[in-house]
């Protein structure tokens, strides 16, 4: 009986808000225009854009949010405050501003502005690109922690995460740099803003989108339930830049070595695998093998770069095909030669434009030439990233205490939440042992170091 009552209560709890949505209903549907009706032709008008605010407000709000995020991360070290800010930023930058403008996409505006001086890049885009970079240089990835609506979405849905093995994490992380390189090249050549086109969260922010975007976004969210921030870690091109800058940040989230009790809780709860334990002393064989591997990686890196340069140079045709005009030229050419029997909307529209075929073809061929060079550049970039990664993982670093990964840590503050030292600092407990797992004994880190 009790179970039945609980189930009924559960049903009521679900039905109440849903009923509220349904009761509100939707506005009257547009009355369809029947055939032969002498209906008046509606006058064209510019629709009111919901959520439109002056650019300066966006910049100001971003600045305030970044300041708060940095304060909550580094000064108050409050996960609760960070969560509240995360939700607020998600609502504002995500659902209210519908994910635009965002620093991830602004990277492309800046790339286009650099490549084409005639392109007037919006000041909001520049500010959104620059401000998080500056804050990262000073305070680490506090933008990722609480301000980025894309990160916020993933942060909130990370219900039960599993640890991704470090080898997989490191190799998949390279994809973000590949994506960054491609995004910059495509933006600079006006091929398209692929980061925006494939932003997995836009359909949710705007409550609608293409099927492919919905499927991609849904997949990222589904993966995000068990893998912490998959988009941020393995795809986000802006995150790739922040990861690099974060390595040089002046201040950042850190685990104070002098008070650490070596409880391992922070390492265990970090969903991003960004807290590394102290290293152990290597055996002579290991050290020797490590050195050999390091030397091999150093020598292999230039070969990798050269190889990727060559591979990139051969990608002129497929890369150029991403440009709509090149695709159109190919389609029109196929139609002209009879290989394509049916025209497309784009080819019909082209023919209606009165533009000469030769101009279209010449433009496409010229672009293909550009992409031979740009493809090579993209290859070099990927080669550098991959080569550096080979050297990076071959290099042996000594750690005497728990450390947050400079690049990988998104400053989410989960480690504070569990850290017994933090709880004592905040006055939530009086003794560290109160929050240690059963059977766990306190081992001061200083003692570990001595041993």
């Amino acid at each position, binding site marked *: 009986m009790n179970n039945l009552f609980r189930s009924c209560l559960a049903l009521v709890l679900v039905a109440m808000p849903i009923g509220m949505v349904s009761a509100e209903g939707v506005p009257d549907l547009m009355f369809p225009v029947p055939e032969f009706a002498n209906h008046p032709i509606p006058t064209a008008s510019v629709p009111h854009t919901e959520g439109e605010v002056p650019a300066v407000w966006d910049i100001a709000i971003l600045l305030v949010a970044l300041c708060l995020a940095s304060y909550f991360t580094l000064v108050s070290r409050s996960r609760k405050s960070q969560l509240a800010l995360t939700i607020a930023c998600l609502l504002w930058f995500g659902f209210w501003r519908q994910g635009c403008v965002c620093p991830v996409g602004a990277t492309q505006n800046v790339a286009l502005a650099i490549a084409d001086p005639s392109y007037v890049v919006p000041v909001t885009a520049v500010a959104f690109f620059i401000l998080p970079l500056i804050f990262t240089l000073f305070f680490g990835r506090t933008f990722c922690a609480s301000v980025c609506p894309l990160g916020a979405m993933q942060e909130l849905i990370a219900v039960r995460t599993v640890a991704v093995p470090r080898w*997989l994490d490191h190799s998949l992380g390279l994809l973000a740099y590949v994506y960054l390189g491609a995004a910059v090249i495509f933006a600079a050549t006006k091929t398209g803003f692929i980061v925006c086109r494939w932003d997995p969260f836009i359909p949710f922010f705007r409550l609608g989108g293409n099927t492919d975007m919905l499927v991609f976004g849904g997949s990222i969210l589904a993966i995000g339930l068990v893998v912490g921030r998959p988009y941020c870690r393995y795809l986000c091109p802006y995150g790739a830049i922040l990861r690099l800058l974060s390595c040089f940040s002046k201040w950042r989230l850190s685990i104070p070595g002098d008070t650490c009790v070596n409880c391992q809780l922070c390492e265990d709860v970090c969903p991003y695998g960004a807290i590394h334990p102290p290293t152990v002393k290597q055996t002579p064989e290991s050290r020797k093998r490590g050195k050999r591997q390091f030397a091999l990686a150093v020598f292999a890196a230039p070969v990798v770069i050269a190889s990727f340069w060559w591979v990139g140079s051969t990608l002129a045709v497929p890369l150029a095909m991403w440009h709509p005009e090149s695709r159109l030229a190919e389609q029109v050419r196929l139609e002209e030669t009879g290989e394509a029997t049916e025209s497309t909307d784009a080819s019909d529209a082209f*023919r209606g434009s009165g533009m000469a075929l030769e101009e279209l073809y010449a433009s496409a061929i010229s672009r293909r030439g550009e992409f031979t060079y740009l493809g090579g550049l993209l290859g070099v970039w990927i080669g550098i990233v991959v080569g550096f990664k080979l050297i990076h993982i071959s290099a042996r670093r000594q750690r005497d205490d728990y450390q947050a990964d400079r690049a990988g840590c998104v400053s989410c503050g989960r480690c504070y939440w569990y850290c017994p030292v933090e709880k004592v600092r905040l006055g939530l407990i009086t003794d560290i042992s109160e929050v240690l797992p059963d059977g*766990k004994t306190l081992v001061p880190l200083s003692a570990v170091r001595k041993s």
Partner: protein
Amino acid sequence: MNSLITFRSILHTAIVAGVFSVLVLILLLVDGASRLNKVPMEASQFVELRKQFVEEPNNVELRQQIQVMDLALRQEYFREQHFTVIGSYLLIGGIVLTLIFGKWATILRRKLPKPKPKLPGPDSDELLSHTGLRAVVLLIVALIGTSWAMNATYKSSLPTSIEELASLNATSNQTLEDAKIEEALALPDLPTPEEWQHSWPNFRGPQGTGISMHASIPTTWDGSSGDGILWKAPVPLPGVNSPIVWRDHVFLSGATDKERAVFCFDALTGDIQWRADIKPDPLVVVAEVKTTDDTGYAAPTMATDGRLVFAMFGDGLLVAVDFQGKERWRQSLGIPQRNSYGHASSLVTHQGAVIVQYDHGTPDDELSKLMSFDGATGNPNWETVRSTPASWSSPIVTTSNESAQIITCCDPWVIAYSPKDGKEIWRVNCLERAEVGPSPVYSDDVVYVCNDTAVLAAIRCDGTGDVTDTHVVWTVEDGLPDTCSPLVSKDFVMTVASYGALFCFDKKDGGDPIWEEDLGADFISSPSLVGDHVYLFGRDGSASIYMPTADECQRVGEAELGEDCVTCPAFQDGRIIIRGVEHLFCIGKTESESS
């Protein structure tokens, strides 16, 4: 109450919300999949009804049926949209509740993590340096594999360089040019003047006068009963152009917004010998052609030079078709701009050249042109820009003082050009503030022009420059037509006034009308002259035959076509070929009746 909100009730709520979300998601997916390629206005029954309506445009019941179905289909479409919107909100609500209650339940039972004790052996950095290396190498292989797949998938059909493109274009253009020249050389010689005079090669006959050289033309017939009708053939596509006749072939064109064609009928039997479907010009295929129901998409009457037939359509497409129905060349002149009724000027040929009066736009934008194309190849001979607005009159080509002239009408000018190079010869300002529809008529070195709201004027054709003050023989302001061209006989000039009255003026002096006859019908078709009989076809298909004299207008015959008619007849020996709105008629007597 607090006791009720226990871990289990919260967990159950999360589960119920989750199950609910999954159900809604399934419903949305099933509904979305069923509507993936569904276009409401393409429902088969609806399409069928609309097709039927094209054939029966006056079927009121059918029209209402379409209206009802149209409304129902649209309502169904928006109902489905409504369903999706509501479903999406329910799904979002369900997911949010699942997450909130799930998280709540987790918090209530939050347990501290239990880190596993560190085992002796290599640390995670050590493992990373070995396994990570392999993973990165694997990634390199994957990236190279992806590159290879991209190269294998995307193949370019374009030339590899701009130089190669230029070379291909040059070869292609040369081949086309060679083929054109070869085809042009294979054409027969131009017809003799005698053959020309006995045919009906363009709008209103060989000289554009509406005068037939033939005799023995019937004066009574009934299209409904078939009396006096030699044959009657349905015309597959609509058009307000008039038929032209060359030997035993009758040509006309038809078009809708979707298709266009040239038809060749057997003049003896009425059978369609061939139909040449003309593909729209791909350059203008997506642009909207603005026209009216009265003009349609195939208003210009075709023309022939005795070797090929030429047709023009409302989208500015000029085509040449041979007598076997094969398209020989085409020129797209662009969609007419700011032409309130749609393009309607008919074609005319002169010594193997096709003359196109393409008036559109305003006097200031200089869109209007008079153009000449080589009939055999379609290559432009010349074009002359005219600072004139849109007009719907057709040009005529005639000889004056042994030299040929192309005479055109527009607001406010009557302008003559040389067919050799398109240079202007003379002009007269007499059609001011008129939407010019009637075509000029030439007779005895004088051209007669007229238009409603302007004048009927007789102009000598031997001038040069602006001859408004010197070469206008006479003008009158009575009996002015808005569409019908004048008819000029040996002694008279006759006009069909826009309100349906036939006026007769003295050819030499103009002056007051000699007589006027109330025709009691609305006229679009221009009058024709066979012998001393004037043939008039009313818009309702009624025909009147008059014999004008210096004193009166004698009605010598009446007939009915049986359907509306807005075109001009073509004449053959003993026969009239006239296009109704639905059929092509051949009026005449059988050999037994004649004998």
